[in-house]
């Protein structure tokens, strides 16, 4: 059994054999020559038996985090520990075993294998793990009965409704009684009646011996979760305060690429250069903006991190607006022009 690394050691009084500890998790990849970090120094502690909700809009890193937790994506930095297993220390073979023995997946869009019956889909992880066919089918039948699909054992996915397929997918995720059940947008393709049944089932599955992690953008699940992790920092306009004047000397950085911010800037005097970090060399200058120009509006308005760095090109004076104030200002400008 591997020794726990010091930074992953559970805090005193919180230790459990199946707790989840994530430290300084960073995932970086290139897109169009620019580095993208869907996760940057992410940390999380969750106790065995909890239902953890990863909440956030598309592109905020939910699925990336699930992939890292499930042992199918290597993070750039950081570590993940589930119980005694340090996932980030495993090699490819170790990952396969980890996935076969400790992790259950419930994928978005169900992702059942269309050529297999419901029973065979649920038995698939066990057959892959080398369980005898008879034992695998027996276990699959038990699980399907538990999720109220005992009557549809011989049906192929094409003959099942979305909710039924999702229940089969959950049963498949439970086939080898995993300590970690990962569900990606489990209610995304379901109507509210089917979604309610699936949520209730997932809630019941989070109990001692099993941690359930659900990635979703559906905040209706928040009340039933034991722990909610917002992956996109919500920008609340009341944090922004009234418009204020900001002064920077040439060379000073206003904000950095990848940071979260709630302010939009209008240049009153001087120039700002907009830079984008490249994965293969020095930052690339995208633009130099001057008096009357505004910048930094998309991150606060859309809930994205800053996509570039803003640095004073000369001594500069700016007015910083909250998103709502900025929208009002723009509308007023448009009204004057019209």
């Amino acid at each position, binding site marked *: 059994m591997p020794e726990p690394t010091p930074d992953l050691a559970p805090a005193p009084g919180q230790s459990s054999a199946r707790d989840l500890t994530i430290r300084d998790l960073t995932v970086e990849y290139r897109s169009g020559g620019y580095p993208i970090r869907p996760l940057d120094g992410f940390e999380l502690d969750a106790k065995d038996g909890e239902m953890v909700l990863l909440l956030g809009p598309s592109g905020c890193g939910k699925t990336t985090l699930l992939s890292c937790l499930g042992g199918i994506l290597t993070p750039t930095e950081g570590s993940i520990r589930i119980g005694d297993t340090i996932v980030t220390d495993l090699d490819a073979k170790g990952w396969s075993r980890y996935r076969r023995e400790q992790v259950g997946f419930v994928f978005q869009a169900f992702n059942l294998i269309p*050529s297999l019956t419901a029973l065979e889909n649920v038995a698939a992880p066990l057959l892959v793990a080398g369980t005898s066919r008879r034992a695998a089918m027996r276990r699959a039948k038990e699980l399907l009965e538990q999720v109220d699909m005992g009557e549809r054992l011989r049906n192929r996915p094409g003959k099942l409704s979305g909710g039924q397929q999702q229940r089969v997918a959950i049963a498949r995720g439970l086939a080898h009684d995993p300590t970690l059940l990962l569900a990606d*947008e489990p209610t995304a393709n379901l109507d509210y009646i089917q979604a309610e049944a699936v949520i209730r089932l997932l809630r019941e599955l989070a109990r001692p011996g099993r941690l359930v992690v659900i990635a979703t953008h559906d905040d209706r699940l928040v009340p039933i979760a034991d722990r909610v992790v917002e992956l996109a920092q919500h920008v609340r306009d009341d944090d922004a305060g009234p418009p204020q004047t900001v002064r920077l000397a040439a060379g000073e950085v206003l904000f950095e690429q990848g940071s979260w911010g709630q302010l939009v800037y209008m240049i009153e005097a001087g120039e700002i250069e907009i830079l984008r970090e490249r994965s293969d060399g020095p930052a690339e200058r995208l633009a130099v903006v001057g008096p009357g120009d505004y910048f930094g509006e998309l991150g606060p308005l859309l809930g994205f991190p800053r996509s570039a760095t803003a640095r004073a090109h000369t001594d500069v004076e700016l007015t910083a607006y909250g998103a709502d104030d900025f929208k009002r200002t723009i509308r007023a400008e448009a009204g004057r022009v019209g």
Partner: protein
Amino acid sequence: MWLLTARDLQHRALRFGMAIFGTALLFAMVILVGGVAAGFSSSATSTVNAMNEGTWILPEGASGAFTSYAAFDAGLADEVVADDEVVPLLIMRGVATSADADAVDPSSAEATQDIVLVGHAEAGLGGPPVDVGRAASGPGEVVASSAAELPIGSSVRVGERDLEVVGTADGMTMFAGTPLLFVDLEVARQIAVEGRPAATALLTAGTVSSLPDELVAIAATAVADDALRLIEDAVGTIDIINVLLWIVAASVIGAVVYLSALDRLRDFAVLKAIGASTRSLLVGLAVQATLVAVVAAVLAIGLAELLLPVFPLHVAIDPGTFIRLPLLAVGVGLVASLGGLRRAVGVDPAAAFSGPGG
């Protein structure tokens, strides 16, 4: 993984069925076209051997008994020293007109056909093995290759002579199916050389120890090889077609396995995510390719047997083909499925997390 492979075959039964049938047709054509080429060769060899397996004596400079019709004085046979009888033979290419075609235009394609006329000494070397009827015993009689489709009792005109068919000999063709007609040597001389005592070849079953300067002795195999020389371009073309058929068959198998792999990329990602090894996925795809190839090969053997009677040419199918074809098909199937296998290897299990269509 066997369950997954079997279920996928069931799930895509129509696609695999069509691929198997298409590949089987191609394999059947491989068998038959190969058989046609082999038939050309075997016909020439068996015809020459049936006439004389021993030594053929030809005029100096002649390329072969069936490709060079240089007539010489048959009296030279007396100057040949051999340990067995030496007999003259006269061979010429010509046209035979069925006298029974009087009702139609005698020059029509149905009435006339190219033939090789062989004049031989009665009951001697150079005569045909008669399968139906009897050997020709007089100047007005002919034994025809069964390929000429001349019934016994019918009349056929060669040159200015009307001849009655008294017997038929199976096979006995040259130049990719041209039938041989066997007549008395004197009849052939009247048709070909105005009755002069000429020959185009001398035959002996024995060993030749001395020859006049104007003649050379060659083996029966050399005579057959020389006859094949005239159709080597045709045989070469058939060989190329055969290779193309293999390529098309491989493409069909490859395309089906590749499409199957493309359809199943999400399945592969899911299976990898739940712990399936890449090797097990590859084995599943390779088994599909092998099954398509083997079932198609077996079906092809049956199809070839069914289609065989339709072919007007002699088709010589080597029994070894029935063993070689499935083995080769497995190899071709596996090679053809490499594209699909590569796609399966390259699937990222993280793709299982992507949404519909993603």
